[in-house]
């Protein structure tokens, strides 16, 4: 059946693909709820520590390993040194989210430029650029991160760098694939037949049609990056004292979970919720921007 044979209706406003996507996204409740939740979490992590009475590294010898409760000022309890868990979770959230966003932005930028260039140039350039990606792909990414951290140290920005170093490859591959298929599109050929210059074709035809993909996979990359940082920290190879992140907190919690399970459960719940929300957000964006029935 040819659904396309519908003539345009006069009454409604023009439906640009972006508007269609926005509508589809809004209809996906899981995705919108996740999005709002993420904004909430981010907000709380950023603003929270300023509003709470305790500092994340201040030890309270009177309240060591306190269970969570609403009666005292330590709503989520404390750890063995008396440090407030809630504040530490929020501070950890700051770090984890910041690493996530920074590393994602840089790997998306690098990956997109690499992949788009390779895809559009084609031929020799494409082959060699992607061979580099293939080679780097062969090494398990965590090992590269561990390598780099071993060599370079565990400074915050170095951790970001290490994570970026392998996260860009997925994006590069995806963007290159999409660029290749866009190059073959009839409307790109039509633009060439008109005489539009290469640069303008890339700017007006290729880039806008790539954006959707980039947006989707950015929201997929962020949780992967956060996860990597958490694993690194959990293994003791990531964020160092005095800073803390969710991975560090989980590791500390895991060590004392027999006596103080809340030290594990709260940061784990925060991390998992964030990752879960990003998943739904990513799924929702993917359905909105790339529906199969179009």
């Amino acid at each position, binding site marked *: 059946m040819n659904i396309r044979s519908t003539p345009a209706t006069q009454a409604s406003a023009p439906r640009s693909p972006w508007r269609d996507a926005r509508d589809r996204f809004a209809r996906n409740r899981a995705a919108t709820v996740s999005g709002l939740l993420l904004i909430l979490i981010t907000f709380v992590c950023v603003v929270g520590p300023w509003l709470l009475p305790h500092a994340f590294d201040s030890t309270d010898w009177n309240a060591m390993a306190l269970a969570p409760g609403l009666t005292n000022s330590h709503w989520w309890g404390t750890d063995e040194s008396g440090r407030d868990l809630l504040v530490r979770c929020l501070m950890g959230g700051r770090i984890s989210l910041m690493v996530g966003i920074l590393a994602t932005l840089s790997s998306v930028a690098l990956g997109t430029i690499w992949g788009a260039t390779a895809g559009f140039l084609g031929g020799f350039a494409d082959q060699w650029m992607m061979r580099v990606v293939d*080679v780097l792909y062969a090494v398990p990414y965590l*090992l590269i991160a561990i*390598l780099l951290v071993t*060599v370079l140290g565990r400074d915050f920005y170095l951790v970001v760098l290490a994570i970026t170093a392998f996260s860009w490859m997925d994006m590069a591959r995806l963007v290159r694939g999409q660029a290749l298929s866009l190059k073959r599109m009839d409307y790109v050929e039509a633009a060439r037949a008109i005489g539009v210059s290469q640069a303008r074709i890339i700017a007006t035809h290729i880039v806008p049609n790539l954006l959707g993909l980039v947006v989707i996979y950015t929201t997929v990359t962020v949780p992967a990056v956060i996860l990597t940082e*958490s694993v690194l920290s959990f293994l003791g190879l990531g964020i160092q004292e005095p800073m803390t992140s969710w991975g560090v907190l989980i590791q500390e919690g895991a060590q004392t979970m027999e006596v103080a399970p809340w030290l594990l459960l709260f940061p784990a719940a925060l991390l*998992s919720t964030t990752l879960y929300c990003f*998943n739904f957000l990513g799924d929702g964006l993917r359905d909105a921007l790339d529906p199969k029935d179009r």
Partner: protein
Amino acid sequence: MLAYTLRRLLAIVPTLLVVIAFVYLLLFSAPGGPFDSEKAVSAAVLANLQAKYRLDLPVWQQYLHYLGNLLHGDLGASFRYADWSVNDLVADALPISLTIGGTAIALSLFIGVIVGSLAALRQNSWMDVSVMLLGNLGSVFPSFVIAPVLVLIFSLWLRWLPSGGWNDFELRFMLLPIALLTFINVATIGRVMRGSLVEVLHSPFIRTARAKGLSLRLIVLRHALKPALLPVVSVLGPLAISSITAALVTETVFSLPGIGRLVVNGAANRDYTLILGLVVLITLVVVTLNLIVDLLYAVLDPRIRY
């Protein structure tokens, strides 16, 4: 088919060479490298290193020397332990990791394919929904979150299994790690299998099969299964890689003396040669796995090999 295999094999060699070179250079030439004066190296170790790596030669010759050693299966001398070579350390750790990892992958493939298929055949039923939910859970909760929780439940509360340790392939030490790894992988495999089987069942050639009067069982097993497995196979590669990550965490949490723990300790101790040797080894394993995946793909899809 043969030509395809050889082509893929040929492609591996340059990859390996480049990776090794890259890692080697990174470790030995980067600032903060092994021979910074701040890091004291014991005399015995230094003697070992001198013998193995010919530190008097320029870097690129050292590299070639290293490669030569590699071809003989010699992964080098440890940077920290004068008495043991990297080979020794690896020989002890590798069987443990392989057993646990291998069992987990095999189990998760088996369970994942079956569960995913059933979910696809009964779309939107309770089985399907629970598979999808579990799938999401397994891929979202990081291994290092699930692991301590598992220990909490089975070890500390129920007291059924030990919380870690190892005793010469005794089953009770292997159960939790294998369960953890299996659960994580089953989530992904089940989800992928379900999605791909649903899509294959909508293909035109399945319609032809129905028009021929074949039973559902025959259609699924003979016509739909092969193409549906293709995405699962293609996800095995990344899955293997993430299994290595999971192995690192698992071995740390459960105190298993495997390759993963060697990596973590090696990194913490800055045992450069050990890390180098381990990276080489793991890369080799991953690359081989990828090759096997490619070959499996060609076995399933005749359009590739002809």
